[in-house]
């Protein structure tokens, strides 16, 4: 809702067409390694390792090659190997991949540890767990007069503990069109049986509906990057720093747990 008010105000302001280019000299920027790694049961270990850059640098993605990347779980250490051609799955690219025959086991609430050392001697570490997925009990649709529908899911939440979720509604996972993407916690839930509606509408047809059960670190990371993105271009917002669980760098190392359905909108 805050974004809505800010959006309306900013649109009103910007629509006056009083915008011009300006030169902002930025100070010297110290690049840091950026990690993106989602541990997913049934999938091999995959990790993206890149660099942060000065804001006005070339729009390329500097990758970090030939780093030592290790993930340890229950005393067993797996090495992720550098891929000169990134491994692309579902539109995502990872430049470090583990043994593809060695899939992540279903092992909830046990610790995974990440260790990275690059050729410049920079060391990064992180830990995470995989939470058990929270299953969607029902998926239903509510149509508006224009024939488009919001997607409403119902699920059961454990009110006795803080829980964090990400709810996604997409037509084509590989497209960059607007997707339903809501990040929330159970802080304001009043019952354990909860329903959430997407903020986008979809036409009749097939869609993917996903409910992710997030670790607290991943929830903090997602909200912080959303806040940082919102602060750019918003005259009413304070800046936000990225809350990362990577020691020695930026990014996220998290277990990924979700319930994903391919359903017909009807």
């Amino acid at each position: 809702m805050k974004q809505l008010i800010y959006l309306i105000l900013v649109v009103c302001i910007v629509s006056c067409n009083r915008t011009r280019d300006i030169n902002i000299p930025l100070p010297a920027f110290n690049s840091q390694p950026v990690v993106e790694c989602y541990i997913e049961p049934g999938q091999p270990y995959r990790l993206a390792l890149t660099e942060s850059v000065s804001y006005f640098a070339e729009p390329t993605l500097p990758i970090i090659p030939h780093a030592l990347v290790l993930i340890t779980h229950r005393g067993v250490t797996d090495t992720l190997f550098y891929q000169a051609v990134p491994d692309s799955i579902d539109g995502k690219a990872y430049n470090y991949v583990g043994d593809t025959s060695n899939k992540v086991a279903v092992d909830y609430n046990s610790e995974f540890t990440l260790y990275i050392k690059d050729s410049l001697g920079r060391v990064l570490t992180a830990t995470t767990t995989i939470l058990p997925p929270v299953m969607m009990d029902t998926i239903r649709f509510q149509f508006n007069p224009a024939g488009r529908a919001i997607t409403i899911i119902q699920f059961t939440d454990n009110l006795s503990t803080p829980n964090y979720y990400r709810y996604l509604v997409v037509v084509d996972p590989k497209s960059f069109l607007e997707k339903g993407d809501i990040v929330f916690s159970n802080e304001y839930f009043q019952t354990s049986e909860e329903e959430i509606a997407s903020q986008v509408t979809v036409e009749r047809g097939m869609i993917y509906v996903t409910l992710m059960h997030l670790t607290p670190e991943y929830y903090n990371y997602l909200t912080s990057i959303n806040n940082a993105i919102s602060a750019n271009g918003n005259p009413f917002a304070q800046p936000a720093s990225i809350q990362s669980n990577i020691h020695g760098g930026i990014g996220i190392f998290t277990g990924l747990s979700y319930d994903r359905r391919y359903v017909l909108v009807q």
Partner: protein
Amino acid sequence: MKWTTFLLFLLTGLFAKAQTFTIQISIKDSKTGDPIIGAITNLIQQQTGDASDANGNVKIVAHAGNDTLQVRYFGYKTYKKPIHIHKNTLLHITLEEDTTEMQEVVIQANPNSDVLNQTQMSKIELSSEEARLLPALGGETDMLKVLQLKPGVKNGGEGSSGLYVRGGGPDQNLFLMDGAQVYNPSHLFGFFSIFNSDAVKNIELYKGDFPSRFGGRLSSVVDVHMRTGDTSKIKVRGGLGLIASRLTVEGPIGKKKKGSFIISGRRTYVDIFTNAINKAEVNNTKFSPIPGYYFGDLNGTFEYRFNKNNSIRFTSYFGRDNFTYNDNPFQFKFIWGNFVNSFNWKHSYSSRLSSNVSLIYSSYQYALSDVSNGFSLTLESSVQDWTAKVDYTYKLNDKHLIEFGGSATSHNFLVSRLNAGSSDGKIKFGAGQRLYGQEYGVYVSDQYTISPRLKIQAGLRFSGFNNHKVYTGLEPRFAVRYKINERQSLKASYSRMYQYVQLASNSGATLPTDIWYPATNNVRPEISDQVALGHQIMLFGEKLFLTNEVYYKPMQHLIDYKDGAQLFVSNNLESQFVYGKGWSYGWEFYLEKKTGRTTGWIGYTLSWTWRKFDSINNGNLFPARYDRRNDISIVIMHKLSERLFISGTWVYGTGNAISLPVGRILVQGPIDSNPVVVPIYTERNAFRMPAYDRMDLGLIYKLRPKWGEADLTLSIYNVYNRKNPYFIYFQEVKNSAGIVTNYQAKLVSLFPIIPSITFNFKF
């Protein structure tokens, strides 16, 4: 026998000379009955006197004998009559307007000599007449924006009526309307103030040296005095402008005309046109509806004088902003506003002792609702106050003026009450808090004239707040004036202030969704200490008046918000707070010309404002967002003829501090999510906006209708159409294939050149 007679005569004369009496004078406008503030009243032979206070009252302690009483005020004929002083006396004097003096422009009530005599420093006075002479945004006179042209008072950005006084934030200003606190003094997200210039008599802004009767805010007191209605006959005045129109009706109450009323209303009407356009295009599927917005004010003041010792006054204000956006199935509504009421009873016990008792109700609320696609959400916050206060003034003798009193306020806060759910009732969730607090204060102060050169004002305020935890504070107030000669004075002051209610705002601007939050077990009251030194001098006779002041103000227990703070919806808002310190210091230069056909002022401020929070900026010192090193304002008003008046303002300020990203990363996200470029922010407020520079011009042309008075007021805002900075953001630059090729910083400006014309009338 001759010796006996002589001795008797001598003793009688000596005895008579030793006796002093108090002359209490009430000074009012002969036509309107308005009290005249700052009228210079003196006994010519005894060379003693004072200026009238906010109620138009003045007390002079004089020796018995014959003298001449003189009362002077610019724009009025001088009152001068012999007086025989032989007992305590109460006089009611009315002054007649002197139209022959209108060849000169009068811009301030208190003449310079009176300002030199006072211990009071760091104070600005602004009358509505003065404010109306200056060009205004959209032709809508805004007294708070005129205050921003004075040194030491900054705005929060282009078009904002928020006040940032000596390094303090917008929540550190105590706004009073006839003594009643106003929580949000702005309309339209800060672009206009709620104070209708037709309803306001004058504003007194204290930047420091706070009188002991005030408390509760760290940085300023904005004391708004509302007009009293005309006691002679019914009068109507108003204005038709491009943005809003105003109407005021005033007149006497009762056959004996012992009372008066004044009712003022104001409303914008852009929404009438936008609603008509939306209605006409309702069947056009390609048409995007225009948001609707309006604001309205209603002020009323009723006063009745029972006798010379008793009068009552009731002031009420109701204001609302209403923003709507309907684009089926999306319906959004946002309303906010103040409701303020003040009942006041003035009583004179004697010529030396008087009291002022007030009962006040004040509330501010906002409510936001959104309905779309079968899902609804409402969010509201409010604050309600009930206040009782009493103030006494006691003139002990001609050297001591004592003030004392107390106040008690009961606060009721509703913080972020959220209700959301689906229209079929299957989805439901909520949040919010209700908090209470009792705030109180007692004070005493003495204005002591030690000698003709040396005068001090010493006071002490004891304040407290109770919200399951009791906080108390002693607030010393001290001021001294040393008169070097008849033309110049040195002044110094010290004030400690406590603030028990803070504004929770995660924005760089005052927004209606900002939430007032009380001190609690975890949230301590904010404290400021301010010392100020000043020098004032009259130049070229009394034609120019130069004031230089320096100040230093450290602040404790300031509140800011942790990164990513959730202020909009929370069951425990204070878990989002972080605590730290602040410092502000600076120099203010103010040169003013008050009389003649050409009047105006030059103001310059050099200032620094710092903050330090352990949880922000790695605990390092950083400048506040509204830290602006240099501010200049030049205001000129000139009477060309009896019918033509022109004015101009020029403001220049070096850039505000802002936070900009210095780096970026790409986050592709897991399955089903879109990749995003995420900015990296490092140091807080490490960058500066470009300088701000603007000129406005105004022209008033008086018409001569048979039915009354009228004028056309032309204002041109931003005469040279400068694209002044409002905010900066970074944007992707894409080629025709939609591929990002570059990143570019963009500067957004708000207002271009805006001419406006207003028709004002009075009959």
